[in-house]
């Protein structure tokens, strides 16, 4: 921003205040990088005992750490995938509604309503999921098993409480919806107005304008927004811990009372009572989760940044 001043190359006098202030800002900035490195380092140091732990250190019959974490990693990925399957189409539609369909005066207020959803604490979502959502969808699940039980995913016996991985996925979908919506909305609003007006002027309907101008322009943004939502869904803890009735196996069925647990929920459920090497095992599963979410988030950010550089939108 101040390049114009810099280029004239008049060296400003370096006052002690300047020196102290700029050093403080550099230190603060570097501290953030240090914290991120420390997170990885301390988790790794504390998880070393878990990688070499004997078979009898694990709850249930597992031969080593990797066989212990595999079903959990599966449950994490499976619930997050199901959540995204529901959240992404609705989020794109909601973002379109706010950016291109709602009356201009209302749009900001409606966006604020969606943001409110993001502010609700996850433990409240958990309470809602188990107190309201699960009993509400259970009869629906029962008839689903009755009619579509031949389809492997919907195989019975149906859960009597509704605390299944599908309910968890619905709660997760509600939780990631505002994140995906917020980013998609930003991207859709950045579509060059000239493109939109040009296609409207050529006689396109609003939907044709959106498919020809807005969506192609926002494709990278939609992908990275979904990945950020994925990162959030992978790491969500309390809602899953409260709603799911878990079982330490790989289970694809959506509607039974036996469900694969997620890494985060497993930590939250077992950490208060864990001791000895059990703590290290949970920390090691946390490290696995950290690495997974870090990779997902980094890919998402790279996509967003690359788009920023080439689109010419800013």
């Amino acid at each position, binding site marked *: 921003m101040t390049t114009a001043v810099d280029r004239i190359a008049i060296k400003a006098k370096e006052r002690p205040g300047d020196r*102290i202030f700029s050093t403080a800002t550099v230190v603060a900035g570097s501290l953030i990088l240090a914290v991120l490195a420390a997170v990885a380092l301390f988790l790794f140091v504390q998880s070393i005992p878990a990688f070499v732990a004997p078979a009898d250190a694990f709850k249930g019959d597992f031969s080593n750490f990797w066989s212990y974490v595999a079903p959990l990693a599966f449950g994490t990925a499976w619930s997050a995938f199901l959540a995204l399957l529901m959240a992404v189409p609705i989020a794109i539609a909601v973002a379109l509604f706010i950016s291109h369909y709602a009356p201009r005066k209302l749009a900001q207020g409606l966006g604020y309503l969606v943001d409110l959803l993001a502010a609700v604490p*996850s433990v409240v979502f958990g309470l809602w999921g188990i107190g309201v959502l699960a009993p509400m969808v259970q009869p629906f699940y029962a008839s689903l098993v009755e009619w579509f039980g031949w389809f492997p995913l919907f195989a019975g016996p149906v859960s009597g409480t509704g605390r299944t991985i599908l309910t968890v996925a619905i709660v997760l979908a509600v939780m990631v919806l505002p994140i995906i919506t917020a980013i998609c909305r930003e991207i859709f609003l950045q579509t060059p107005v000239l493109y939109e007006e040009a296609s409207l002027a050529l006689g396109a309907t609003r939907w044709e304008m959106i498919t020809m101008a807005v969506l192609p322009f926002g494709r990278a943004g939609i992908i990275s927004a979904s990945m950020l939502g994925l990162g959030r869904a992978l790491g969500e803890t309390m809602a899953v811990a409260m709603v799911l009735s878990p079982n330490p196996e790989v289970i694809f069925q959506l509607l039974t009372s036996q469900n694969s647990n997620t890494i985060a929920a497993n930590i939250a459920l077992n950490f208060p009572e864990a001791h000895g090497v059990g703590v290290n095992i949970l920390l090691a599963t946390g490290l696995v989760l950290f690495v997974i979410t870090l990779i997902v*988030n980094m890919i998402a950010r790279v996509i967003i940044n690359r788009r920023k550089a080439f689109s010419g939108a800013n």
Partner: protein
Amino acid sequence: MSTVTISSPVTNSLTAGKLPKNAPLMVLAASWLVVGAFFTVIFLSGASESFNWAGTLFFGTVLYCIALYLFSYFVEGIRRAKDRLVTALVAIAFVVAMIPLISLVGTTIVNGLPAFLTPTFFTESQRNVVGAGGGALHAIIGTLFVTGLATLISVPIGLLTAIYLTEYGRGRLARGITFFVDVMTGIPSIVAGLFAYALFSLLFNDPGIRFGFGGSVALSVLMIPVVVRSSEEMLKLVPNELREAAYALGVPKWLTIVKVVLPTSLAGIVTGVMISISRVIGETAPLLIVAGFTSSMNYDLFSERMMTLPVFVYNQYASQGADSQAYIDRAWAGALTLIVIVMLLNLVARLVARTFSPKLGR
């Protein structure tokens, strides 16, 4: 004048073959009525015990989509029909997204009010309470302390980093920080808790360590990136002319930042900080891990377990006593308190932003 256009047959291609302006609303009302009548017949015939409201709304809306598409298809052609269908679907998606919010806030208020309104909820802790009674004072105090300290840690670091990124940062370090701040916003909250636990249990060599300060550190890890992002956006909005004017008067760079740039963007920064507080104040998992839970008051952040509101909600729900309804009531009341705090923070933040933001465009 209008009589002329009506009496002559329609020749204008722009108005030909178009549904009337309020057609979607009328089709919607009609399809709800049709489906409602259908369910009323079922209800009156005794096949179901009550009138099926959910079914009426759901199938009525489905019928609306189909009917509107067909009407439009025959009058306006397939392109407009598609457009109308998508418009309907997009609006429905928004309504669907709002249902959980309304249901969640509604049930929290209804279920939370009984215990929320008991006089002891804000004046007593859970010490020696079995069954009904007691309150959440220990949790509220704990939340205020832990979140307050987290704010004290995060705001200076976050703000200085934002200043570095906007005023000083060039090159690889700045790009690295921007990238990893973005990545850090996606760290799962439970990992932040595990980090704080791993750090302090190593430092103090105590595998069972639980204390409030650890919770503050965990929350700071989650809060700093949010503060950096929002402050950076706000600092970028300060017009460059202001900085140049200060330099031209011979003001040192650091004083320019402190006296010109920061005051100009103060409202935005305060808004960002409040929103970031509202994000972390509801975090449960890290506090469950490193701050633990207790039923007694604890004013000391640096020793012993410390209860916080989100953990209170979880704990009341997860370990119910004999009189389970009392515990569930308290859980909902705690949830209501949390939602009220978060909504208030959000509301005040918006008000601050609107009231104190500099009026640039005149």
